[in-house]
Protein backbone atom coordinates (compact mmCIF):
# COMPACT_ATOMS: atom_id res chain seq x y z
CA UNK A 1 0.00 0.00 0.00
CA UNK A 2 1.38 3.38 -0.99
CA UNK A 3 1.44 6.21 1.51
CA UNK A 4 -1.24 8.89 1.63
CA UNK A 5 1.27 11.44 0.38
CA UNK A 6 2.48 9.24 -2.49
CA UNK A 7 -1.05 8.53 -3.72
CA UNK A 8 -2.03 12.20 -3.59
CA UNK A 9 1.16 13.29 -5.35
CA UNK A 10 0.60 10.83 -8.19
CA UNK A 11 -3.03 11.84 -8.64
CA UNK A 12 -2.35 15.59 -8.43
CA UNK A 13 0.48 15.28 -10.95
CA UNK A 14 -1.80 13.40 -13.34
CA UNK A 15 0.40 10.29 -13.27
CA UNK A 16 -2.44 8.15 -11.93
CA UNK A 17 -6.20 8.57 -12.20
CA UNK A 18 -8.23 8.67 -8.99
CA UNK A 19 -10.64 6.21 -10.59
CA UNK A 20 -7.80 3.72 -10.97
CA UNK A 21 -6.82 4.22 -7.33
CA UNK A 22 -10.38 3.44 -6.25
CA UNK A 23 -10.65 0.39 -8.54
CA UNK A 24 -7.39 -0.90 -7.09
CA UNK A 25 -8.61 -0.26 -3.53
CA UNK A 26 -11.91 -2.03 -4.15
CA UNK A 27 -9.99 -5.01 -5.53
CA UNK A 28 -7.69 -5.02 -2.47
CA UNK A 29 -10.67 -5.01 -0.12
CA UNK A 30 -12.33 -7.80 -2.13
CA UNK A 31 -9.14 -9.84 -1.87
CA UNK A 32 -8.14 -9.11 1.72
CA UNK A 33 -11.22 -8.44 3.85
CA UNK A 34 -12.94 -11.84 3.96
CA UNK A 35 -10.73 -13.29 6.72
CA UNK A 36 -10.46 -9.95 8.56
CA UNK A 37 -14.02 -8.54 8.45
CA UNK A 38 -13.00 -4.93 8.91
CA UNK A 39 -15.40 -3.54 6.29
CA UNK A 40 -19.12 -3.33 6.99
CA UNK A 41 -20.25 -1.38 3.91
CA UNK A 42 -18.42 -0.89 0.63
CA UNK A 43 -19.35 2.39 -1.04
CA UNK A 44 -18.16 1.48 -4.53
CA UNK A 45 -20.62 3.53 -6.57
CA UNK A 46 -20.21 6.80 -4.70
CA UNK A 47 -16.44 6.30 -4.43
CA UNK A 48 -16.08 5.83 -8.17
CA UNK A 49 -18.29 8.85 -8.83
CA UNK A 50 -16.23 10.98 -6.43
CA UNK A 51 -13.02 9.73 -8.05
CA UNK A 52 -14.32 10.64 -11.50
CA UNK A 53 -15.03 14.14 -10.22
CA UNK A 54 -11.46 14.40 -8.92
CA UNK A 55 -10.08 13.30 -12.29
CA UNK A 56 -12.34 15.76 -14.09
CA UNK A 57 -11.11 18.60 -11.88
CA UNK A 58 -7.49 17.71 -12.61
CA UNK A 59 -8.17 17.55 -16.34
CA UNK A 60 -9.52 21.11 -16.07
CA UNK A 61 -6.31 22.23 -14.39
CA UNK A 62 -7.82 22.49 -10.90
CA UNK A 63 -6.14 21.25 -7.72
CA UNK A 64 -8.53 18.90 -5.89
CA UNK A 65 -6.54 19.17 -2.68
CA UNK A 66 -3.71 17.63 -0.68
CA UNK A 67 -5.51 14.28 -0.37
CA UNK A 68 -6.48 14.04 -4.04
CA UNK A 69 -7.66 10.52 -4.79
CA UNK A 70 -6.69 9.10 -1.39
CA UNK A 71 -9.13 6.34 -0.40
CA UNK A 72 -10.29 6.32 3.20
CA UNK A 73 -12.74 4.55 5.49
CA UNK A 74 -14.61 5.53 8.63
CA UNK A 75 -15.71 3.76 11.77
CA UNK A 76 -19.41 2.96 11.74
CA UNK A 77 -20.24 5.87 14.04
CA UNK A 78 -19.46 8.67 11.55
CA UNK A 79 -22.46 10.01 9.66
CA UNK A 80 -22.29 9.27 5.94
CA UNK A 81 -24.99 11.00 3.93
CA UNK A 82 -27.65 8.54 2.81
CA UNK A 83 -26.67 5.73 5.21
CA UNK A 84 -27.91 4.83 8.68
CA UNK A 85 -25.24 5.46 11.31
CA UNK A 86 -25.27 2.10 13.06
CA UNK A 87 -22.67 2.82 15.77
CA UNK A 88 -22.08 -0.90 15.56
CA UNK A 89 -25.54 -1.69 16.93
CA UNK A 90 -27.88 -4.15 15.25
CA UNK A 91 -30.81 -2.13 16.58
CA UNK A 92 -29.70 0.81 14.41
CA UNK A 93 -29.50 -1.06 11.08
CA UNK A 94 -32.78 0.59 10.11
CA UNK A 95 -32.12 4.01 11.62
CA UNK A 96 -33.00 6.99 9.46
CA UNK A 97 -30.20 7.69 6.96
CA UNK A 98 -27.87 10.55 7.81
CA UNK A 99 -28.76 13.68 5.89
CA UNK A 100 -25.16 14.88 5.63
CA UNK A 101 -21.62 13.68 6.20
CA UNK A 102 -19.95 14.07 9.57
CA UNK A 103 -17.81 17.21 9.65
CA UNK A 104 -14.59 15.16 9.72
CA UNK A 105 -15.70 13.22 6.64
CA UNK A 106 -16.61 16.47 4.95
CA UNK A 107 -13.16 17.93 5.66
CA UNK A 108 -11.30 14.92 4.27
CA UNK A 109 -13.50 14.90 1.17
CA UNK A 110 -12.92 18.64 0.74
CA UNK A 111 -9.19 17.86 0.68
CA UNK A 112 -9.77 15.42 -2.16
CA UNK A 113 -9.99 12.13 -0.25
CA UNK A 114 -12.51 9.51 -1.35
CA UNK A 115 -14.71 7.63 1.11
CA UNK A 116 -14.66 3.96 0.16
CA UNK A 117 -15.94 1.99 3.14
CA UNK A 118 -17.46 2.01 6.60
CA UNK A 119 -15.69 -0.05 9.24
CA UNK A 120 -16.56 -2.37 12.10
CA UNK A 121 -16.54 -1.50 15.81
CA UNK A 122 -17.77 -2.66 19.20
CA UNK A 123 -21.44 -1.94 19.79
CA UNK A 124 -21.83 1.72 20.72
CA UNK A 125 -18.01 1.86 21.08
CA UNK A 126 -18.25 0.14 24.48
CA UNK A 127 -15.38 -2.36 24.30
CA UNK A 128 -11.74 -2.96 23.41
CA UNK A 129 -12.25 -6.00 21.19
CA UNK A 130 -14.44 -5.38 18.10
CA UNK A 131 -16.35 -8.53 18.89
CA UNK A 132 -19.74 -7.50 17.58
CA UNK A 133 -22.87 -9.63 17.92
CA UNK A 134 -24.52 -7.99 14.89
CA UNK A 135 -21.65 -7.27 12.51
CA UNK A 136 -19.10 -9.95 13.37
CA UNK A 137 -15.64 -10.04 14.90
CA UNK A 138 -12.88 -8.07 13.21
CA UNK A 139 -9.74 -10.19 13.15
CA UNK A 140 -6.14 -9.11 13.42
CA UNK A 141 -4.43 -8.98 10.01
CA UNK A 142 -1.19 -10.21 11.59
CA UNK A 143 -2.94 -13.35 12.87
CA UNK A 144 -6.66 -13.79 12.16
CA UNK A 145 -6.94 -16.03 15.21
CA UNK A 146 -6.33 -12.93 17.36
CA UNK A 147 -8.31 -9.84 18.28
CA UNK A 148 -7.84 -6.63 16.32
CA UNK A 149 -8.66 -4.61 19.43
CA UNK A 150 -11.38 -2.01 19.69
CA UNK A 151 -13.55 -0.30 19.61
CA UNK A 152 -12.18 1.09 16.32
CA UNK A 153 -10.97 -2.36 15.30
CA UNK A 154 -12.14 -2.14 11.70
CA UNK A 155 -10.31 1.16 11.22
CA UNK A 156 -7.00 -0.22 12.51
CA UNK A 157 -7.28 -3.57 10.74
CA UNK A 158 -8.08 -1.96 7.37
CA UNK A 159 -4.82 0.03 7.50
CA UNK A 160 -2.78 -2.89 8.87
CA UNK A 161 -4.03 -5.23 6.14
CA UNK A 162 -3.11 -2.72 3.45
CA UNK A 163 -6.71 -2.22 2.35
CA UNK A 164 -6.82 1.51 3.05
CA UNK A 165 -4.02 4.04 3.68
CA UNK A 166 -6.15 6.24 5.94
CA UNK A 167 -9.10 5.64 8.24
CA UNK A 168 -10.94 7.47 10.99
CA UNK A 169 -11.89 6.11 14.38
CA UNK A 170 -12.93 7.40 17.77
CA UNK A 171 -11.33 7.08 21.18
CA UNK A 172 -13.09 7.35 24.54
CA UNK A 173 -10.90 5.18 26.77
CA UNK A 174 -8.41 3.83 24.23
CA UNK A 175 -10.52 2.89 21.23
CA UNK A 176 -7.98 4.28 18.75
CA UNK A 177 -4.84 3.43 20.70
CA UNK A 178 -5.64 -0.18 21.63
CA UNK A 179 -6.43 -1.39 18.09
CA UNK A 180 -3.58 0.68 16.64
CA UNK A 181 -1.19 -1.10 19.00
CA UNK A 182 -2.56 -4.59 18.43
CA UNK A 183 -2.67 -4.18 14.65
CA UNK A 184 0.71 -2.41 14.41
CA UNK A 185 -0.29 0.92 12.87
CA UNK A 186 -0.15 4.59 13.83
CA UNK A 187 -3.13 6.18 15.57
CA UNK A 188 -3.84 9.59 17.03
CA UNK A 189 -6.06 10.42 19.95
CA UNK A 190 -5.95 14.21 19.85
CA UNK A 191 -6.27 16.68 22.69
CA UNK A 192 -9.83 16.34 23.95
CA UNK A 193 -12.27 18.57 22.15
CA UNK A 194 -9.99 19.71 19.34
CA UNK A 195 -11.30 17.75 16.33
CA UNK A 196 -14.90 18.08 15.15
CA UNK A 197 -17.46 15.72 16.67
CA UNK A 198 -20.38 16.96 14.56
CA UNK A 199 -22.06 13.94 12.98
CA UNK A 200 -20.25 11.45 15.21
CA UNK A 201 -22.44 9.12 17.29
CA UNK A 202 -21.54 9.98 20.88
CA UNK A 203 -20.66 7.70 23.78
CA UNK A 204 -19.11 9.68 26.67
CA UNK A 205 -18.93 13.43 26.12
CA UNK A 206 -16.26 13.85 28.78
CA UNK A 207 -13.78 11.66 26.88
CA UNK A 208 -14.92 11.18 23.25
CA UNK A 209 -12.53 12.23 20.49
CA UNK A 210 -12.03 11.28 16.87
CA UNK A 211 -8.72 10.65 15.17
CA UNK A 212 -6.94 9.09 12.20
CA UNK A 213 -5.10 5.81 11.63
CA UNK A 214 -2.29 5.60 9.05
CA UNK A 215 0.83 3.64 8.18
CA UNK A 216 3.34 6.41 8.93
CA UNK A 217 3.81 9.32 11.30
CA UNK A 218 3.84 11.76 8.37
CA UNK A 219 0.52 10.52 7.00
CA UNK A 220 -1.01 10.70 10.47
CA UNK A 221 0.16 14.29 10.92
CA UNK A 222 -1.10 15.27 7.47
CA UNK A 223 -4.57 13.89 8.19
CA UNK A 224 -4.66 15.55 11.60
CA UNK A 225 -3.89 18.94 10.10
CA UNK A 226 -6.57 18.58 7.45
CA UNK A 227 -9.10 17.51 10.06
CA UNK A 228 -8.51 20.83 11.79
CA UNK A 229 -5.74 20.07 14.23
CA UNK A 230 -3.58 22.92 15.46
CA UNK A 231 -0.73 22.73 17.92
CA UNK A 232 1.71 24.69 19.98
CA UNK A 233 5.14 25.18 18.37
CA UNK A 234 7.56 22.31 18.83
CA UNK A 235 10.22 23.07 21.47
CA UNK A 236 13.76 23.25 20.10
CA UNK A 237 14.82 20.52 22.52
CA UNK A 238 12.00 18.08 23.19
CA UNK A 239 12.36 16.61 26.67
CA UNK A 240 11.43 12.91 26.59
CA UNK A 241 10.77 10.67 29.59
CA UNK A 242 9.23 7.25 30.20
CA UNK A 243 6.25 6.67 32.41
CA UNK A 244 7.05 4.23 35.20
CA UNK A 245 4.99 2.73 38.00
CA UNK A 246 1.59 1.59 36.76
CA UNK A 247 2.81 1.69 33.17
CA UNK A 248 5.51 -0.92 33.75
CA UNK A 249 3.63 -3.30 36.05
CA UNK A 250 1.79 -5.26 33.39
CA UNK A 251 3.97 -4.69 30.34
CA UNK A 252 5.79 -7.57 28.62
CA UNK A 253 9.57 -7.70 28.38
CA UNK A 254 9.61 -6.87 24.67
CA UNK A 255 7.82 -3.59 25.37
CA UNK A 256 10.30 -2.73 28.08
CA UNK A 257 13.19 -3.51 25.74
CA UNK A 258 11.60 -1.37 23.05
CA UNK A 259 11.32 1.59 25.41
CA UNK A 260 14.90 0.95 26.59
CA UNK A 261 16.08 1.18 22.98
CA UNK A 262 14.19 4.44 22.51
CA UNK A 263 15.72 5.79 25.70
CA UNK A 264 19.19 4.87 24.44
CA UNK A 265 18.45 6.60 21.14
CA UNK A 266 17.84 9.80 23.07
CA UNK A 267 21.00 9.31 25.13
CA UNK A 268 19.12 8.12 28.20
CA UNK A 269 15.77 9.32 29.47
CA UNK A 270 14.43 9.64 33.01
CA UNK A 271 11.59 7.55 34.38
CA UNK A 272 8.77 9.54 35.93
CA UNK A 273 5.75 8.44 37.91
CA UNK A 274 2.28 9.85 37.65
CA UNK A 275 0.56 9.30 41.01
CA UNK A 276 -2.67 7.36 41.53
CA UNK A 277 -2.94 6.05 37.99
CA UNK A 278 -4.97 3.02 39.06
CA UNK A 279 -7.53 5.32 40.65
CA UNK A 280 -7.61 7.42 37.48
CA UNK A 281 -8.51 4.29 35.56
CA UNK A 282 -11.23 3.50 38.08
CA UNK A 283 -12.64 7.01 37.84
CA UNK A 284 -12.66 6.73 34.04
CA UNK A 285 -14.60 3.47 34.39
CA UNK A 286 -17.18 5.14 36.61
CA UNK A 287 -17.68 8.21 34.43
CA UNK A 288 -17.85 6.10 31.29
CA UNK A 289 -20.55 3.82 32.65
CA UNK A 290 -22.55 6.68 34.12
CA UNK A 291 -22.47 8.87 31.02
CA UNK A 292 -22.98 5.89 28.72
CA UNK A 293 -25.96 4.72 30.76
CA UNK A 294 -27.48 8.18 30.72
CA UNK A 295 -26.87 8.51 26.97
CA UNK A 296 -28.71 5.28 26.21
CA UNK A 297 -31.47 5.64 28.79
CA UNK A 298 -34.25 6.10 26.18
CA UNK A 299 -33.33 2.85 24.40
CA UNK A 300 -32.79 1.02 27.70
CA UNK A 301 -36.36 1.96 28.57
CA UNK A 302 -37.89 0.88 25.28
CA UNK A 303 -35.57 -1.56 23.46
CA UNK A 304 -33.35 -3.10 26.11
CA UNK A 305 -33.52 -6.59 24.66
CA UNK A 306 -32.09 -5.37 21.35
CA UNK A 307 -28.70 -4.48 22.87
CA UNK A 308 -25.85 -6.95 22.88
CA UNK A 309 -26.25 -8.33 26.44
CA UNK A 310 -22.63 -7.55 27.27
CA UNK A 311 -23.21 -3.90 26.40
CA UNK A 312 -26.64 -3.70 27.99
CA UNK A 313 -25.54 -5.00 31.39
CA UNK A 314 -22.82 -2.37 31.72
CA UNK A 315 -25.06 0.45 30.50
CA UNK A 316 -27.79 -0.58 32.95
CA UNK A 317 -25.25 -0.66 35.76
CA UNK A 318 -24.05 2.79 34.77
CA UNK A 319 -27.59 4.16 34.56
CA UNK A 320 -28.35 3.26 38.17
CA UNK A 321 -25.09 4.59 39.58
CA UNK A 322 -25.73 7.39 42.10
CA UNK A 323 -24.93 10.91 40.92
CA UNK A 324 -22.68 11.43 43.93
CA UNK A 325 -20.43 8.64 42.70
CA UNK A 326 -20.10 10.29 39.31
CA UNK A 327 -19.31 13.65 40.89
CA UNK A 328 -16.60 12.11 43.08
CA UNK A 329 -14.95 10.65 39.99
CA UNK A 330 -15.16 14.04 38.30
CA UNK A 331 -13.59 15.67 41.34
CA UNK A 332 -10.75 13.18 41.20
CA UNK A 333 -10.32 13.99 37.51
CA UNK A 334 -9.57 17.58 38.43
CA UNK A 335 -6.92 16.51 40.96
CA UNK A 336 -5.32 14.05 38.55
CA UNK A 337 -5.19 16.61 35.75
CA UNK A 338 -3.23 18.94 38.03
CA UNK A 339 -0.70 16.17 38.78
CA UNK A 340 -0.14 15.59 35.06
CA UNK A 341 0.24 19.31 34.42
CA UNK A 342 3.01 19.39 37.01
CA UNK A 343 4.82 16.57 35.22
CA UNK A 344 4.65 18.41 31.90
CA UNK A 345 6.46 21.36 33.43
CA UNK A 346 9.64 19.26 33.19
CA UNK A 347 8.88 16.96 30.24
CA UNK A 348 7.36 17.36 26.79
CA UNK A 349 6.76 13.78 25.66
CA UNK A 350 6.13 10.79 27.90
CA UNK A 351 6.48 7.22 26.60
CA UNK A 352 4.31 4.37 27.85
CA UNK A 353 3.02 1.06 26.52
CA UNK A 354 -0.33 1.24 24.74
CA UNK A 355 -1.27 -2.37 25.51
CA UNK A 356 0.74 -4.66 27.75
CA UNK A 357 1.31 -7.50 25.30
CA UNK A 358 0.46 -8.76 21.82
CA UNK A 359 -3.15 -9.28 20.72
CA UNK A 360 -5.04 -11.94 22.70
CA UNK A 361 -6.46 -14.94 20.90
CA UNK A 362 -10.13 -14.71 19.97
CA UNK A 363 -10.80 -18.16 21.43
CA UNK A 364 -9.12 -17.14 24.72
CA UNK A 365 -9.98 -13.43 25.07
CA UNK A 366 -8.35 -12.93 28.44
CA UNK A 367 -5.35 -10.90 29.54
CA UNK A 368 -3.39 -11.00 32.78
CA UNK A 369 -3.54 -7.93 35.01
CA UNK A 370 -1.61 -8.12 38.29
CA UNK A 371 -1.56 -11.90 38.02
CA UNK A 372 -5.31 -12.27 37.44
CA UNK A 373 -6.80 -13.31 34.09
CA UNK A 374 -9.54 -10.85 33.17
CA UNK A 375 -11.67 -10.26 30.04
CA UNK A 376 -9.74 -8.45 27.31
CA UNK A 377 -12.88 -6.67 26.11
CA UNK A 378 -13.02 -4.63 29.31
CA UNK A 379 -9.37 -4.48 30.34
CA UNK A 380 -7.17 -3.93 27.28
CA UNK A 381 -7.26 -0.23 28.08
CA UNK A 382 -5.42 -0.29 31.39
CA UNK A 383 -2.65 1.94 29.98
CA UNK A 384 -4.86 4.12 27.80
CA UNK A 385 -7.80 4.96 30.09
CA UNK A 386 -5.85 7.04 32.64
CA UNK A 387 -4.54 9.34 29.88
CA UNK A 388 -7.76 10.02 27.96
CA UNK A 389 -9.36 10.53 31.39
CA UNK A 390 -7.66 13.94 31.40
CA UNK A 391 -7.84 14.62 27.68
CA UNK A 392 -4.15 14.34 26.82
CA UNK A 393 -3.06 13.95 23.19
CA UNK A 394 -1.46 10.61 22.38
CA UNK A 395 0.18 9.25 19.24
CA UNK A 396 0.35 5.46 19.19
CA UNK A 397 3.42 4.13 17.38
CA UNK A 398 4.21 0.50 16.50
CA UNK A 399 7.53 -0.94 17.59
CA UNK A 400 9.30 -2.16 14.47
CA UNK A 401 9.09 -5.97 14.75
CA UNK A 402 9.02 -7.56 11.29
CA UNK A 403 7.68 -11.09 11.40
CA UNK A 404 6.38 -10.75 14.96
CA UNK A 405 3.02 -9.77 16.39
CA UNK A 406 2.70 -6.00 16.86
CA UNK A 407 3.33 -4.08 20.07
CA UNK A 408 2.47 -0.41 20.40
CA UNK A 409 3.66 2.53 22.47
CA UNK A 410 1.94 5.73 23.48
CA UNK A 411 3.70 9.07 23.00
CA UNK A 412 1.88 11.35 25.40
CA UNK A 413 1.94 15.14 25.45
CA UNK A 414 0.37 18.00 27.31
CA UNK A 415 -2.83 19.42 25.83
CA UNK A 416 -2.13 21.00 22.43
CA UNK A 417 1.26 19.33 22.00
CA UNK A 418 0.46 17.12 19.01
CA UNK A 419 3.25 18.64 16.90
CA UNK A 420 5.89 17.53 19.42
CA UNK A 421 4.41 14.02 19.40
CA UNK A 422 4.58 13.85 15.61
CA UNK A 423 8.16 15.11 15.70
CA UNK A 424 9.24 12.34 18.09
CA UNK A 425 7.23 9.74 16.17
CA UNK A 426 9.03 10.81 12.99
CA UNK A 427 12.44 10.62 14.65
CA UNK A 428 11.79 7.11 15.95
CA UNK A 429 10.62 6.02 12.52
CA UNK A 430 13.75 7.39 10.84
CA UNK A 431 15.88 5.68 13.49
CA UNK A 432 14.27 2.34 12.61
CA UNK A 433 12.85 1.83 16.10
CA UNK A 434 9.21 2.12 15.15
CA UNK A 435 7.28 1.50 11.97
CA UNK A 436 4.64 -0.57 10.29
CA UNK A 437 5.43 -4.14 9.24
CA UNK A 438 3.29 -5.85 6.64
CA UNK A 439 1.41 -8.90 7.91
CA UNK A 440 3.02 -12.18 6.97
CA UNK A 441 1.47 -13.55 3.77
Amino acid at each position, binding site marked *: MKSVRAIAEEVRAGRRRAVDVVHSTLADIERLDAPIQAVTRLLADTALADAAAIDAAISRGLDPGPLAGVPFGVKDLFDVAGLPTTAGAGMRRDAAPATSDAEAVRRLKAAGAILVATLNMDEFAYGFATVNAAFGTTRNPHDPARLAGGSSGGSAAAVAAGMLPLTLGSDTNGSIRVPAALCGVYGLKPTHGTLPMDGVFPFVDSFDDIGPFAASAADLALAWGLLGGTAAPVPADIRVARLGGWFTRNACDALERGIDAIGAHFGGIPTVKLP*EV*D*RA*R*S*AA*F*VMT*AAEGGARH*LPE*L*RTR*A*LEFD*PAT*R*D*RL*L*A*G*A*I*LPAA*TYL*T*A*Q*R*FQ*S*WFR*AQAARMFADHDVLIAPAVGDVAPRIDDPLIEVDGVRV*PARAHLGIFTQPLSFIGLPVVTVPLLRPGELPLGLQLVGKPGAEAALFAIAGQLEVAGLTGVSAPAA
Partner: protein
Amino acid sequence: MADAPSDALPELAGRLVQLEIPAQCTATVAAAFALLREHAERVESFFVENPDAACAV
Protein backbone atom coordinates in the same frame (compact mmCIF):
# COMPACT_ATOMS: atom_id res chain seq x y z
CA MET B 1 -16.06 -9.59 37.00
CA ALA B 2 -16.85 -8.83 40.61
CA ASP B 3 -19.31 -11.07 42.42
CA ALA B 4 -22.56 -9.37 43.29
CA PRO B 5 -24.18 -10.11 46.63
CA SER B 6 -27.54 -11.75 45.88
CA ASP B 7 -29.30 -9.52 48.41
CA ALA B 8 -28.36 -6.51 46.27
CA LEU B 9 -30.71 -7.59 43.48
CA PRO B 10 -33.97 -6.17 44.95
CA GLU B 11 -32.37 -2.78 45.59
CA LEU B 12 -30.85 -2.60 42.12
CA ALA B 13 -34.14 -3.74 40.57
CA GLY B 14 -35.83 -0.91 42.46
CA ARG B 15 -33.42 1.59 40.92
CA LEU B 16 -34.25 0.29 37.45
CA VAL B 17 -37.95 0.74 38.20
CA GLN B 18 -37.28 4.31 39.37
CA LEU B 19 -35.66 5.02 36.01
CA GLU B 20 -38.64 3.40 34.22
CA ILE B 21 -36.38 0.73 32.77
CA PRO B 22 -38.43 -2.45 32.36
CA ALA B 23 -35.35 -4.71 32.00
CA GLN B 24 -34.89 -7.25 34.72
CA CYS B 25 -32.02 -6.83 37.12
CA THR B 26 -30.25 -10.06 36.33
CA ALA B 27 -27.21 -11.46 38.08
CA THR B 28 -25.03 -10.17 35.24
CA VAL B 29 -26.34 -6.62 35.69
CA ALA B 30 -25.69 -6.93 39.41
CA ALA B 31 -22.18 -8.18 38.70
CA ALA B 32 -21.54 -5.22 36.38
CA PHE B 33 -22.81 -2.91 39.11
CA ALA B 34 -20.61 -4.59 41.72
CA LEU B 35 -17.56 -4.01 39.51
CA LEU B 36 -18.51 -0.36 39.15
CA ARG B 37 -18.88 -0.09 42.91
CA GLU B 38 -15.37 -1.50 43.33
CA HIS B 39 -14.01 1.18 41.05
CA ALA B 40 -16.08 3.86 42.74
CA GLU B 41 -14.88 2.85 46.20
CA ARG B 42 -11.29 3.02 45.00
CA VAL B 43 -11.87 6.64 43.98
CA GLU B 44 -13.87 7.54 47.09
CA SER B 45 -11.15 6.17 49.36
CA PHE B 46 -8.69 8.61 47.80
CA PHE B 47 -10.57 11.49 49.38
CA VAL B 48 -10.69 9.67 52.72
CA GLU B 49 -6.91 9.21 52.60
CA ASN B 50 -6.33 12.72 51.23
CA PRO B 51 -9.01 14.94 52.74
CA ASP B 52 -7.12 18.07 51.78
CA ALA B 53 -6.59 17.16 48.11
CA ALA B 54 -7.12 20.32 46.13
CA CYS B 55 -9.66 19.78 43.37
CA ALA B 56 -10.86 22.85 41.56
CA VAL B 57 -13.72 21.53 39.45
